């Protein structure tokens, strides 16, 4: 018996659903790539003015905490001149607003996930998890990948800010979709100041400038194209600095301090000044280096932060200094990715204060004073592609999920000093490895010394092709389970992520404080705010921070610390209920005891 034409049509209709729906996503990506904006239509480098992301303002303040409310939303923004690009941004901008906080003052950052339920072009189910990269946060506030917040939910992240001054950033960390989420724009800077740093005569204020570098690719209508090249990496042909393509920044003839953050999904950079002049690195991921390091090139992996000082005093007005990208190997380079931005020397220095580079900057950083002899354990971790998967010591995040989030690759005790050897035996790719919670010191690369500008506290290390890098760290100050992963976010999403557990009895990273459904209750500051606790009197950016309380945690401290007390007042249903209950109890007690006052007698 044969199938009739009608039968074949019916079967074909079923087949169309079975084949075309799955193929649609690939087709969309391929069509978008085919529709990539030609280089000729991209803005000419250095024609777009430079801009700095705005500083976030707290919605309320308590005695010891600044409260922020940030909505993750889709918004059309002008990245390429004349075109609107739909992005996902913290408060609808990318990079999101910078949070600036003095050491010792806590923050509560409410993240409202108001993203669409499904990605408009990649068609994946959306969720988010926010990681404050560089913060020794409690496990439940560390942006644990599987602790995700669905659209319509919110989570109040609490950050202790007891560490030393540093450049941090908050970005998405949602399991399996970190790369597209961050690529859509969910990334922003977070700056922590301390008294020591503010007292140094290095550039501050308007001369302390964030440079958030990221690459992207656009369709001819301005939409972002995400192509992860078969789970290997996402490489764009447009270099954005603070969300602007190849901007030009007017500078004065003096020193500037640039806080460099590589917020790219997969691209590393080899930065150099077009003049060939050296610049000075004064800080790394975990804050200021013990001593400055001069260099002419800077290998810059994803999620790394470097604070560099460039001295424009030697250039005559009218000079253009181009920040170049010499392109480390195993990046997909385009003809447009060789330059990053330009500095246009436009005026003499308006201020000459804080215009120095001291020969010693931060000699007392605890991590940098650790010695290999203090290590109680040496662990070896291999970063490898095997069986079509990105693995760490043969393990993936799937193993962690399948174990009910209990499987760990290391279980150091609180305060233990350990050496980890991170090995990348391949020649086809590099892995910037991020170890959450801790700062570490790079001991060596393939047995040789680390690069001069890496001799500062780090939390991401560039493990290049065929390299084995040894890092030294003290585990703490929190206990619990924390992630370690490759910061090529495409690798991370395809499971190159594991976890370790510090000590015992740490909070569960998912269950301890789960996201809640919106609407969120209002955030309130202290109602009975005393003198000195008003928003305007608190130490703000650029001001001397409040001294840390006695016994308060300091960076790198390995002592077990009590869980930061929550002094935040969140007025909501629960609080109102609690108050009503208390009132009821009180009136009941009153009825029982009569209206007894202390000292009254029956």
């Amino acid at each position: 018996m044969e199938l009739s034409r009608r039968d074949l049509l019916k079967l074909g209709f079923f087949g169309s659903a079975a084949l075309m729906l799955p193929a649609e996503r690939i087709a969309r990506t391929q069509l978008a790539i085919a529709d990539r904006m030609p280089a000729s239509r991209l803005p000419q480098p250095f024609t777009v003015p430079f801009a700095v992301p705005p500083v976030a303002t707290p919605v309320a303040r308590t005695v010891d905490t600044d409260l922020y409310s940030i909505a993750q939303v889709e918004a059309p923004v002008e990245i390429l001149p004349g075109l609107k690009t739909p992005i996902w941004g913290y408060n609808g901008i990318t990079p999101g607003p910078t949070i600036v906080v003095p050491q010792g003052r806590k923050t509560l950052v409410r993240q409202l996930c108001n993203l669409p339920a499904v990605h408009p072009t990649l068609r994946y189910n959306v969720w988010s998890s926010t990681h404050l990269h560089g913060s020794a946060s409690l496990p439940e506030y560390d942006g644990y990948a599987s602790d995700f917040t669905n659209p319509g939910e919110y989570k109040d992240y609490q950050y202790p800010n007891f560490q030393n001054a540093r450049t941090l950033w908050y970005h998405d960390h949602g399991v399996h979709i970190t790369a597209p989420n961050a690529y859509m724009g969910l990334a922003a800077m977070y700056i922590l100041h301390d008294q020591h740093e503010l007292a140094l005569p290095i550039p501050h204020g308007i001369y302390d400038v964030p440079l958030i570098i990221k690459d992207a690719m656009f369709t001819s209508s301005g939409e972002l194209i995400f192509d992860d090249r078969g789970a290997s990496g996402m490489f764009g042909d447009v270099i954005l600095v603070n969300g602007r393509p190849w901007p030009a920044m007017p500078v004065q003839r003096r020193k500037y301090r640039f806080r460099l953050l590589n917020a790219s999904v997969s691209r590393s950079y080899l930065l150099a000044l077009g003049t060939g002049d050296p610049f000075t690195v004064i800080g790394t991921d975990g804050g200021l280096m013990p001593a400055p390091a001069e260099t002419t090139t800077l290998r810059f992996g994803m999620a790394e932060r470097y604070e560099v000082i460039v001295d424009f005093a030697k250039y005559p007005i009218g000079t253009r200094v181009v920040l170049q990208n010499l392109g480390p190997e195993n990046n997909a380079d385009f003809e447009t990715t060789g330059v990053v931005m330009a500095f246009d020397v436009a005026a003499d220095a308006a201020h000459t204060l804080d215009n120095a580079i001291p020969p010693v900057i931060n000699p007392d950083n605890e991590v940098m004073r650790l010695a290999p002899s203090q290590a109680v354990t040496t662990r070896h971790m291999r970063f490898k592609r095997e069986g079509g998967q990105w693995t760490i010591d043969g393990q993936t995040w799937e193993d962690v999920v399948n174990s009910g989030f209990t499987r760990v690759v290391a279980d150091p005790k609180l305060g233990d000093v350990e050496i980890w050897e991170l090995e990348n035996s391949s020649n086809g790719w590099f892995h910037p490895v991020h170890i959450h919670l801790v700062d570490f010191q790079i001991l060596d690369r393939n047995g040789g010394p680390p690069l001069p500008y890496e001799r500062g506290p780090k939390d991401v290390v560039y493990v290049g092709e065929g390299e084995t890098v040894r890092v030294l760290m003290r585990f703490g100050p929190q206990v619990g389970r924390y992630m370690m992963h490759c910061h090529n976010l495409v690798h991370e999403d395809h499971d190159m992520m594991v976890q370790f557990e510090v000590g015992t009895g740490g909070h569960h990273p998912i269950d301890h404080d789960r996201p809640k459904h919106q609407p969120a209750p209002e955030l309130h500051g202290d109602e009975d705010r005393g003198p000195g606790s008003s928003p305007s009197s608190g130490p703000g950016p650029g001001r001397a921070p409040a001294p840390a309380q006695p016994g308060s945690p300091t960076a790198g401290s390995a002592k077990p610390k009590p869980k930061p007390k929550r002094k935040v007042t969140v007025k909501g249903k629960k609080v109102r209920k609690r108050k009503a209950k208390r009132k009821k109890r009180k009136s009941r007690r009153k009825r029982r005891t009569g209206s007894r006052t202390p000292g009254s007698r029956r």
Partner: protein
Amino acid sequence: MAGITAGGGRTSGRSGGRVVSRARPARVPAPLAAALLSLAVAWVHLAYAASHLRQWWAYGAFFVAAGAGQALFAPLVLRRPVPAVLYAGIAGNVAIVLMYVLTRTAGPPLGPHARVPEPAGPIDLATTAAEIVLVGVLLSMLDARARRRVLDVLVAGAVALWALRLTGRLP
């Protein structure tokens, strides 16, 4: 299904009220075609079972079950191509195809990749196409009424899938 017949290699046709004998190219008998297709898709599922087992035991178990079922179906459909076997083959393969659509659109319902859609690739698309052809071959072995009933159900399923997609309920 051109080239596949439920009977033998020669068929007769009616032309102008006369029954004429038409020579046609040799055809693969439907049970043999179904068995070969079933073995082919079984091989793919079993070949990929290990990597899915590595992700999660249930993903691997699904692949082993699908592959084993399709492998066992091959001799069964050769030896006993009765309606019950044909229905079982159609139902099993349609279920596998629907699971495939789910994993490539909404993502697997459970496991470490729950709700994360997998990208479709050439091998899995080709395997699904082979399964749809296999369903077609099995349908050709049913009588006309039964075939119509099954095809109506498939059309209803396809309408539902497209409707879910077009209304945004299926990502």
